């Protein structure tokens, strides 16, 4: 059996719990510590050159995953392999005793057999694009300095001329032409779309292999949104960069993701190829999400499944299937049995007890 190429990213049973600060009274009463279960056992992989969309409402843990992947948060358990190498918590914090050296959270695994990748190396090869281009650029830096900063941090392209070349190329690839016109400008002189291009340029200047894009277009106007989506699609085609695309909008997912993972309350409830999941959604939550996506055609107004209330608090996760209190198809078992992902078809899995009962 020839070994298949290593996936860009392999996430295995990832957990991220945030401790809730307990009051003195709780402490005196010896109440157990409570946790916000932001990411509660996630497994997925991302192939090289692939675009995987993580979809879900606010508070489902999609941003926490991205932050954990890039080491902005320490994982509470599980294993992250980046290009076959184990991602470690930042060594400095490990030494300070803030994180146990060997992960001891739920789902911890034997971790010693993998070669490791340092945070610095990881952050050179994996870059994040944040949601708000108005807040993710330093207002007092010029565009040149912003885009050159990653090179400075990683000590790449030290000769001045080479550095200018790299910045110029990155800006032009991001569609800011001629790049020299932007070098000495400040973020406030640019429009929202241009700023997001600068954000993308400074992510791409290191020529990363993985982009973590956290809602990169949700703050932008429709026409600019299309430009940025087209730009990301081009980058992926030309550079073969893998993209983890985080969004709450299934419309944009349909546009350019290869696969989609639907998240609810820290878990993946459905994952599969975009075509399969959108055409044949199996989980009631996916079905509801799909039904509320605005479709720009008044002739296609349809019955929408509107879930009442909001995502429950991830401190007290409902028993059984965590979606059952809001599910329209709920049956008795749902409140006691926690469903696992089941295979629907070759490229499609969903976690719903109703799947046992054959096609709906």
């Amino acid at each position, binding site marked *: 059996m020839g070994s298949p190429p290593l996936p860009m990213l392999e996430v295995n049973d990832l957990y991220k719990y945030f401790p809730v600060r307990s009051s003195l009274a709780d402490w005196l009463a010896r109440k157990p510590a409570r946790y916000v279960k932001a990411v509660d056992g996630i497994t997925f992989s991302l192939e090289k050159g692939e675009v995987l969309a993580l979809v879900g409402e606010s508070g489902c843990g999609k941003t926490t995953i991205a932050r954990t992947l890039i080491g902005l948060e320490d994982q509470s358990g599980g294993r992250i392999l980046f290009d076959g190498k184990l991602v470690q918590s930042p060594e400095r914090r490990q030494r300070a005793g803030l994180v146990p050296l060997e992960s001891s959270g739920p789902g911890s695994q034997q971790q010693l057999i993998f070669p490791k990748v340092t945070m610095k190396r990881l952050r050179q090869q994996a870059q994040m694009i944040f949601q708000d281009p108005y807040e993710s650029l330093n207002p007092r830096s010029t565009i040149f300095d912003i885009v050159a900063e990653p090179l400075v941090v990683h000590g790449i392209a030290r000769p001045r001329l080479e550095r200018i070349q790299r910045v110029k190329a990155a800006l032009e690839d991001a569609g800011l032409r001629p790049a020299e016109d932007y070098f000495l400008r400040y973020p406030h002189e640019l429009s929202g779309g241009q700023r997001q291009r600068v954000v993308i340029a400074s992510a791409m200047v290191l020529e990363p292999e993985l982009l973590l894009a956290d809602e990169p277009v949700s703050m932008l106007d429709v026409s600019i949104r299309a430009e940025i989506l087209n730009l990301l699609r081009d980058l992926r085609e030309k550079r073969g960069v893998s993209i983890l695309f985080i969004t709450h909008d299934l419309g944009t997912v349909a546009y350019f993701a290869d696969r989609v993972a639907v998240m609810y309350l820290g878990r993946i409830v459905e994952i599969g190829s975009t075509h399969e999941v959108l055409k044949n959604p199996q989980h009631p939550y996916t079905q509801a999400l799909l039904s509320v996506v605005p479709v720009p055609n008044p002739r296609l107004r349809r019955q929408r499944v509107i*879930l009442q209330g909001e995502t429950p608090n991830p401190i007290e996760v409902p028993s059984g299937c965590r979606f059952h209190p809001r599910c329209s198809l709920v049956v008795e078992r749902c409140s006691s049995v926690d469903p696992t992902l089941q295979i629907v078809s070759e490229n499609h899995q969903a976690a719903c007890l109703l799947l046992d009962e054959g096609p709906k």
Partner: protein
Amino acid sequence: MISMPTNPPAPLLSVRHLSTDFINTDGQVSHALEDVSFDLYPGQTLGLVGESGCGKTTTMLSIMRLLPSAGRITRGEIILDEVDLLGISERDMRAYRWKEMAMVFQSAMNALNPVVRVGDQIREAILIHNLMDRQNADLRVEELLDLVGIARARKEQYPHQYSGGMRQRAMIAMALACKPRILFADEPTTALDVMIQAQVLELLKHIQQEFGLAIVLVTHDLGVVAEVCDTVVVMYGGKVAEYGPIDAVYNSPEHPYTQRLLEAFPDLNKPGESLATIPGTPPRLNALPPGCRFEPRCHQRIPICSQLNPRLLKVGEKHVAACHLLEQKETTH
């Protein structure tokens, strides 16, 4: 919000040739609105769409006469109940504001006072218009909270204890406090998740059916407009580019700008299709191009576009668009 084929006879609110200027401290004049006209019928929803800076919010503020001090309405009529709202005194205007026309402001996060309980803020809106005494106002607050689906007990809470969707509901409750006939909603769902967005739109629809409200929905989201509006006004650079019934505008858009906007919207039903883009940025209002305002970005421009501003031409039943190409088509026929 359900599209009804019947056209109610008389418009509730008529905006005619509305033009608004902004004058900055250097005396520079920006033509924020020019010749904006549309009709709003009772029980219907009108969508005002366009990119940031196209004059959607200015239109709404002009109608409410809530423009900041730099803004001046230079021309036009705003007719409600046969009264021109631009011709009455500020004092008389108060009888219309909130009682006849109310507004749900953009970003509920910033529009609510963070240090006043939500219930008290809604009550203030009632008391300030001398509609009832304190006790009845308290009852009315509870009624309003029921209406928008917030538990009564939460009137004692502060805005930071509310989620984004709930704050938006509270804003809607406040706007409904004086039982207005027209509700302006400025980007009511923009910062919200799809599910919460659907909840808020559902709520607006429900309220409209219950009270026969006319709603003006200001948004840049064409999907939302397609879901809930009966008529749509597409604005560009402070002017109406296209105006008509929702079905006509979406299925046979006549203005190149509308066409491109629709093609730029990712559609769940057409996955993988390449998205159209509109190069460039919207015009700065103090440096407008001499001809058609969309000309510098237009993919179908012809020589005349850079010289002459196009008129609004009738292209269908209640459907108008401003483009020179249409004029040419008309003359060749």
